[in-house]
């Protein structure tokens, strides 16, 4: 069964802000290669403010849009390749046409939440060319749910398949999200997405509130790698949805691996919840077991995540640190099994 929730991965777009738009081309390629079969709907790449935004005003990008798109395109076979553009920064001639020619599948056209009519030319142009197109409303906390609906409806009449609501300042609380997303989902046929920022540690809660209110697109980033306080960490949203039994097609271990290998090690981004903290929460095992698990994992050559999951299955409690070694030893003797199936099976 195909999941109803679409995962938009904006790591290589919003994350660009976090490193002043200096992500190397090898990272774009490697990231896309690794994430291609992880079960995401699309990967969005480019400068933090989208196509055409490399500038003295916002920050110059290390690589051109063209170079970035080419590197990503060559490494995505299953997952769709997406780009973002804000009219006023990029244009049809300079940016959208070259991106179409380079084989981009999904286009997101954004504007401030009151200016939807500035996206008309671009959305209509893309739809006319049979491109999958979404409107994006930025800084959505600044307007009422009614105004947001009015703006989203405009994007709908231009032909957008959906609208992504951005909480660009991380200023919303779950009730704000519910009011806005609920109003959109009750009154339009659009697919609705939510793009959170974590300024008040609400990114995940807000994303879940959006899903509960009718959103079906999560627009987030791995490890929350994004502007300022970062975004809704996709791997955490996925972990929660798997725990809730609402998401089956995503390879969570793969996402975690990319968080550790690329976001943390290669990009030196250390904000956010670590993989072990996440798996500890997901499996319901005392947080302070982490150091013990790390040591046992090295000693027995076992994935620390598997140790946590198994500890969770055994319902260990604080004070049972000795169980870590027992579990690790047992796991090391088991045949190597497929990580996804193991994870899912363990959760049942």
């Amino acid at each position, binding site marked *: 069964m195909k999941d109803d929730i679409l995962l938009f991965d904006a790591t290589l777009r919003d994350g660009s802000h976090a490193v002043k738009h200096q992500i190397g081309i090898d990272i774009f390629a490697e990231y896309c290669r690794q994430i291609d079969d992880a079960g995401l709907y699309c990967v969005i790449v480019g400068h933090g403010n989208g196509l055409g935004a490399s500038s003295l005003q916002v920050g110059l990008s290390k690589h051109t849009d063209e170079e970035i798109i080419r590197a990503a395109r060559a490494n995505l076979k299953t997952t769709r390749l997406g780009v973002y553009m804000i009219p006023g920064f990029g244009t049809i001639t300079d940016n959208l046409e070259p991106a179409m020619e380079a084989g981009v599948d999904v286009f997101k056209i954004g504007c*401030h939440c009151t200016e939807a009519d500035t996206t008309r030319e671009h959305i209509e142009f893309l739809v006319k060319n049979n491109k999958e197109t979404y409107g994006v409303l930025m800084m959505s906390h600044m307007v009422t749910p009614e105004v947001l609906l009015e703006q989203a409806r405009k994007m709908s009449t231009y032909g957008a398949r959906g609208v992504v609501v951005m909480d660009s300042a991380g200023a919303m609380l779950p009730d704000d999200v519910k009011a806005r997303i609920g109003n959109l989902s009750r009154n339009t046929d659009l697919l609705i997405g939510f793009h959170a920022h974590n300024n008040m540690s609400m990114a995940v809660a807000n994303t879940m509130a959006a899903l509960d209110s009718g959103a079906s697109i999560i627009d987030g980033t791995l490890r929350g790698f994004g502007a300022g306080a970062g975004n809704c960490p996709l791997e955490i949203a996925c972990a929660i949805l798997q725990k809730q039994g609402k998401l089956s097609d995503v390879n969570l271990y793969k996402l975690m691996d990319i968080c550790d290998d690329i976001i943390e090690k290669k990009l030196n981004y250390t904000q956010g919840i670590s993989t072990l903290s996440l798996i500890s929460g997901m499996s319901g095992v005392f947080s302070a077991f982490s150091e013990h698990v790390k040591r046992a994992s090295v000693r027995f050559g076992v994935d620390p995540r598997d140790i946590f999951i198994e500890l969770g299955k055994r319902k260990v409690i604080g004070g049972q640190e000795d169980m870590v070694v027992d579990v690790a030893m047992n796991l090391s003797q088991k045949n190597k099994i497929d990580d996804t199936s193991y994870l899912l099976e363990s959760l049942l």
Partner: protein
Amino acid sequence: MSKVKVAIIGTGNIGTDLLVKIQRSSVLECFLFTGRNYDSPGMRFAANLGVPLSDQSIDAIITDPDCCDIVFDATSAAVHLVHAPILKGLSKFTVDLTPSLVGEMCIPVINLEECLTKDNVNMVTCGGQATVPIAYAIASVHPDTEYFEIVASISSKSAGPGTRANIDEFTQTTKDALIKFTGVKNAKAIITLNPANPPVLMHNTIYALVGNPNMPEICRSVKNMEKRIQEYVPGYRVTLDPVYENGRITTMVTVVGRGDYLPEYSGNLDIITCAAIQIAEKYAMREGAR
């Protein structure tokens, strides 16, 4: 000398602001204000001024070609593409205020004389009228400038449906004008609409990348340019004289409108309508002298 007859097509913010300014002109007189809807705010405004109106858009000129010698087109880029050949056929001197780029790009302070020899001139964009002269002033001191970038922010309230529908052409045309007038190899234009209330004044920043800038010369050149623009756009102000920091030259410009049709915050209207009237008046005076 009797006034030269003009027509305005397009009754939105730009067309209506033009009309108010033409009412003050000693050489131009509006004999037709034509659009599509008698109920539009601009049309009602013009009716109060007693200006001849039509809701037949350009057809009103086709059926009565003698109503004017100069036509201002304040519709949209796509519509002007249709209008341009018709107006050329009618031998009207056409001042295009859309970013259609059919005619020669005109920044009066730079190439007014050359434009007087054309039958269709394009007024670029409000952002272009505000920023290209500054870039030109810098490039005239430093022809070796590597890159220009401008950021124009205007209040949402002053950007009518036509401007919004043309945001793409607006961005592209402003960039093209930067390249054309300065000879720089690469340039960028960024446009933002700010919905803040009360509305913000039109604000523009011009960045330039120059190897070893001669700042005193650049400042002189920019201040001189400011004075020359103020001759036809009174509310034009350089609010940050060129400063060199972080390897770039930054200059900021604000345009305070005269408050003719829309309030003072709409300097973006004034900068382009004043430029359009400047070229039309010069054309009218030259024709009158013949």
